[in-house]
């Protein structure tokens, strides 16, 4: 279906690269490489030049750690969102936050998407998104508290649980006034899930696509890739891209990534294999 991400519209078959931009000193993949605001702006410039349609700006790492207050989170992201908005009018700006107060503040300075990686932990977040004219990413976390690791969580059927929770969250967002075409669901690999769960969600992603809501996947360099291949952070790109290909074949629409160029190539290639995208330039045998 047509996607409306804040002030930007995308057609039915469009696949989108959402590049991760951390305003954190301690995220697992980049270890604070873009903690300084100018470094983060350079990262935005880079991913835009690589073709990313969306940047996902986050002020708090997902893993447990020092508590970051809402005020501190806002100081990390709000002015930065405003700078990115001014510099890149046609870029979709997403902010990774679970807090309604932060969502309201970033919407006021030009955010288009609220990426609630923690599955609706703050019940007022959808209201803030609706009032701010932003799209919402509805994730499945199994009901865990933000910034906690999964510990002995089990599901009768992890995909059924992911669908039930994300669709319920999506309906809550629509009821709050977020347009139906601005609601995206995300099974949230590794969040409230062990590696077996994340693999099963990947294998059965088509069931989430069948809900009719556009599906976002966030696979990039995650632990389920690392555990599956027994590889540390920094050596997970190939595994990430393999999982990306499976999700692309199933029909995922948005890819939250560290590596834009590689992911775009995989998604385009798989989309063409699936018959959803023509080849870029075909002449072999057709001269």
């Amino acid at each position: 279906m047509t996607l409306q991400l804040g002030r930007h519209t995308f057609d039915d078959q469009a696949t989108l690269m959402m590049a991760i931009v951390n305003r954190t000193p301690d995220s697992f993949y980049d270890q604070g490489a873009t903690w300084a605001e100018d470094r983060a702006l350079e990262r935005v410039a880079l991913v835009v030049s690589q073709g990313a349609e969306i940047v996902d700006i986050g002020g708090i790492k997902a893993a447990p750690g020092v508590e970051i207050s809402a005020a501190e989170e806002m100081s990390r992201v709000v002015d930065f969102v405003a700078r990115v908005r001014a510099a890149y009018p046609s870029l979709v700006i997403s902010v990774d936050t679970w807090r309604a107060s932060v969502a309201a503040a970033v919407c006021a300075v030009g955010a288009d998407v609220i990426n609630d990686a923690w599955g609706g932990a703050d019940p007022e977040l959808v209201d803030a998104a609706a009032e701010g004219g932003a799209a919402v990413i509805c994730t499945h976390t199994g009901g865990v508290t933000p910034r906690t690791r999964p510990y002995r969580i089990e599901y009768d059927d992890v995909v059924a649980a992911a669908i039930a929770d994300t669709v319920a969250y999506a309906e809550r967002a629509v009821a709050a006034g977020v347009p139906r075409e601005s609601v995206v669901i995300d099974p949230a690999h590794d969040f409230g899930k062990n590696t077996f769960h994340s693999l099963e969600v990947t294998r059965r992603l088509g069931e989430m696509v069948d809900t009719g809501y556009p599906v976002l996947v966030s696979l990039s360099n995650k632990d389920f890739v690392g555990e599956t291949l027994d590889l540390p952070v920094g050596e997970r790109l190939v595994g990430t891209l393999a999982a990306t290909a499976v999700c692309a074949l199933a029909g995922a629409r948005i890819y939250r990534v560290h590596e834009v160029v590689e992911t775009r190539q995989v998604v385009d290639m798989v989309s063409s294999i699936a018959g959803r995208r023509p080849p870029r330039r075909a002449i072999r045998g057709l001269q």
Partner: protein
Amino acid sequence: MTRVVLVPGVLALLPEYAGLVDPVADLRAACLSAVAWLGTGPVTVIADPQGARVARALLEACGGIETGLRPSSTTATASYLVVGNGSACRSEKAPGHLDERAAAYDDGLRAGLASSDVKGLDLGLGKSLLASLDAIARLPEVLPVGTPAQVDYDDDPFGVQYWVMRWQA
């Protein structure tokens, strides 16, 4: 009056083989311009079955009408769309690889087409050079020998010799 257009049977001209970027944009533009010149009346296609698909696609893109092989006697202008091309062996990357005889063969064919005199064509050599000549060899059926051609396109972008030409007699 008779109007005849020659286009190459390039499958990349077919809508089912369209990519995001058109690899034959210039050729397509020349073909469409020439086919449009044939007018909106019935057009007789002279082509092998594969070439006929290309002709139909071009005619459809121009909103034209394809007929059988017999032109309507009631129309003032008899219009023909001929599908054929030169050799496919003009470079290392060409479909038929490089054949040193290809350039000279195409030069001869070009000269013949320019004056619609193709009776002396070496069809056997043309076949071995992967030229598409079946329809071109039938030009004398619809066009007096010696009719000068207007050349709209003359290039070999993929090691295959393409022409877009038009004749009026």
